[in-house]
C-alpha cells in the first residue's frame, strides 16, 4: 500500500495531464451539447413544420445511434470525406452531438411545461415570437431543465472515457497505465473511480447552484435544489423577510393561481 502511494505521487503529473484531457472533453462537450440542445430544442417547438420536423429527425437520429458509432464515424469516416479532425475535437464533437440530442428533448419539454398563462400574457402584450421566447419563456424553462441537464452532464462526463478509443491519454487511460505501473488493480482503479466521482460531484454541485439561482430569480423557494440550494435559500430568505415586513403587505399572499 505504501509502495502504491509512492508510485502514485510519482505518477501525479501524468494523472494531472489525463485529468486535463478529461476535463477538456467534458467542458467542450457540455458547451457544445448545450448549444446544440438549444438550437434543436427550440427548432422542435417552432410553429412551422419546416423547422420542427427536420429537428425532430436529427434528434431521433443522434439518440437512436450509439455514441461509439457516432464517434467512430467522425474518427474513421470523416477523413475519407476529406475532413480530418484531431482526436480531441472528434471526441468533443461526438459527445456534443450525442448528449446535445438528449438535451434538446429536455429543452423542448421544459419550454412546453412553462405555464400556458405565461405564453398567453406574452401574446396579449403583442411581443414578437423571438422576444416571447427569449425574454419570457426560456428564462422560466431554464429553471425547469437544469435537474435533467445535470443528469445528462454527468452521463457526458462518463462518456468522455470513450476518448481511450481515440488514442487520447485521458484519465481512464492514465489509470490503466497506473495499474500497469503498480500492478495493483484495486488500488489504481479506486483512485480512478474516486477522481471521476469527484468530477461528477462538482458537476452536480454546479448545477444545483445554477438551479437555486434560477429559482430565486423566479421568486421561488430554492431550498429543494440540493444542499447548495439550501445555502442560497438561507441567503435569500433574510432579504425576503425584510420585504414581507414592508408596509402595504397586509393582504395575505395567495399561493394558488399566483405567478408561479
Amino acid at each position, binding site marked *: 500500500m505504501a509502495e502504491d502511494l509512492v508510485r502514485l505521487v510519482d505518477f501525479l503529473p501524468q494523472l494531472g495531464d489525463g485529468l486535463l484531457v478529461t476535463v477538456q472533453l467534458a467542458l467542450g462537450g457540455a458547451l457544445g451539447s448545450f448549444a446544440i440542445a438549444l438550437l434543436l430544442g427550440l427548432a422542435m417547438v417552432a410553429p412551422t413544420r419546416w423547422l420542427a420536423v427536420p429537428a425532430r429527425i436529427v434528434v431521433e437520429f443522434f439518440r437512436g445511434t450509439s455514441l461509439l458509432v457516432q464517434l467512430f464515424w467522425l474518427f474513421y469516416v470523416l477523413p475519407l470525406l476529406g475532413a480530418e479532425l484531431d482526436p480531441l475535437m472528434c471526441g468533443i464533437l461526438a459527445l456534443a452531438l450525442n448528449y446535445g440530442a438528449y438535451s434538446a428533448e429536455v429543452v423542448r419539454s421544459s419550454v412546453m411545461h412553462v405555464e400556458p398563462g405565461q405564453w398567453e400574457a406574452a401574446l396579449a402584450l403583442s411581443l*414578437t*415570437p423571438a422576444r416571447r421566447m427569449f425574454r419570457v419563456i426560456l428564462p422560466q424553462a431554464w429553471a425547469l431543465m437544469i435537474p435533467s441537464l445535470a443528469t445528462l452532464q454527468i452521463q457526458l462526463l462518463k462518456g468522455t472515457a470513450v476518448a481511450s478509443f481515440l488514442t487520447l491519454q485521458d484519465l481512464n487511460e492514465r489509470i490503466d497505465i497506473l495499474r500497469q505501473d503498480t500492478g495493483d488493480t484495486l488500488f489504481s482503479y479506486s483512485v480512478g473511480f474516486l477522481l471521476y466521482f469527484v468530477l461528477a460531484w462538482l458537476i452536480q454541485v454546479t448545477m444545483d447552484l445554477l438551479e437555486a439561482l434560477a429559482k430565486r430569480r423566479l421568486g421561488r423557494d430554492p431550498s429543494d435544489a440540493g444542499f447548495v440550494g439550501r445555502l442560497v435559500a438561507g441567503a435569500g430568505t433574510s432579504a425576503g423577510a425584510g420585504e414581507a415586513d414592508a408596509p402595504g403587505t397586509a393582504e395575505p399572499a395567495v399561493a394558488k*393561481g399566483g405567478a408561479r
Partner: protein
Amino acid sequence: MPEPAVPEPAVPEPAVPEPSVAEPSRPEPSTGAAPALEFRDVEKRFGRNTVLSGLNFTVRPGERVTLIGPSGSGKTTILRLIMTLETLSEGYIYVGGQPLTHEERNGKRVALPGRRVRETTKRIGMVFQHFNLFPNMTVLDNLVEAPVHVLGMSREAAAEKARGLLDRVGLAEKADAHPTRLSGGQQQRVAIARALAMDPEILLLDEVTSALDPELVGDVLQVLRDIAAETDITMLIVTHEMQFARDVSQRVMMFDQGAILEDGTPEEIFTRPREARTQRFLSAVLE
C-alpha cells in the same frame, strides 16, 4: 356568399341575416366612425365541438360591455379570440375597422401575417384570471417590457409611465418587488397596470376576480371602476360580479350555447330579462 352589385370591398354586408336580438348593435356600413370591435359570422370549433357559431355583433368605441352566461356558453372564448389566443375557425373580427387575423380578399378568406396581426393586437390589452405576471422580471419590468419592445418607447419614458400607473393602482412602492412576493390582489392590480401601460383602445377583463380570496376582490374592482370612470377605453368584461357589471357597463350580452341570447342595457337584462333562460341564470348567480 353575398353578391354585391357594386364592388364595395371595404365593408361588405354580413352574409347571414342578423339575429333580431342584436338590434341595438347592427353595423352601420359606410356611415359614422368604425366600431371599436366587430364580429362577423364568427365560428369557433374545438375539434368536433362547436363553441361559437354565426356570431355577429359590434361594440362602439368607449362602450363597456359585460358578457354573462353559464360556463361553456363561449364568453371567455370571445375574449380569447379577440386577443388571438385562439384561432378563428370561420368568419372575421375587425378592430377599429381593421381586420384582426383574417381578411376577405377577392371573396376568399385569407390569414394575415403575424406582423400585421400584432399591429392590431397591440391596441388591445387583456387581464387574466390568474394574473400571469412574468416571474422572471420585477414588477416594474413587467410594465416596461412591452411599451419598450412593442411600442418603441424609450426605457426612461416607459419606466416613468409605469411608476405613474403603479401609483394609480396603489402599488407605487412595489415597483422593484418580485411579483411572487405580492398578494393575489396586488398581483392582479399590477396586471391591470401592465395592460394599461400599452395605452390600449380595448381592454379585455377575463374573470379577473375569480381566483382571488373574497376579501381581496374589492380593491381590484375599485381600481377597475376608477379606470372606467377616468378613461374612454372600450371594455369587454367577463365576470360573475353582477353588481360590478351593473355599475360599470352600459351593455350586457347574455350568451347561451355559443350564441347571443339577449343583448341590452344592464337595467333591461338584470331587472326585466325577456328570456326565461336569462332569468334562471340570473337567479342562480344572484342567490
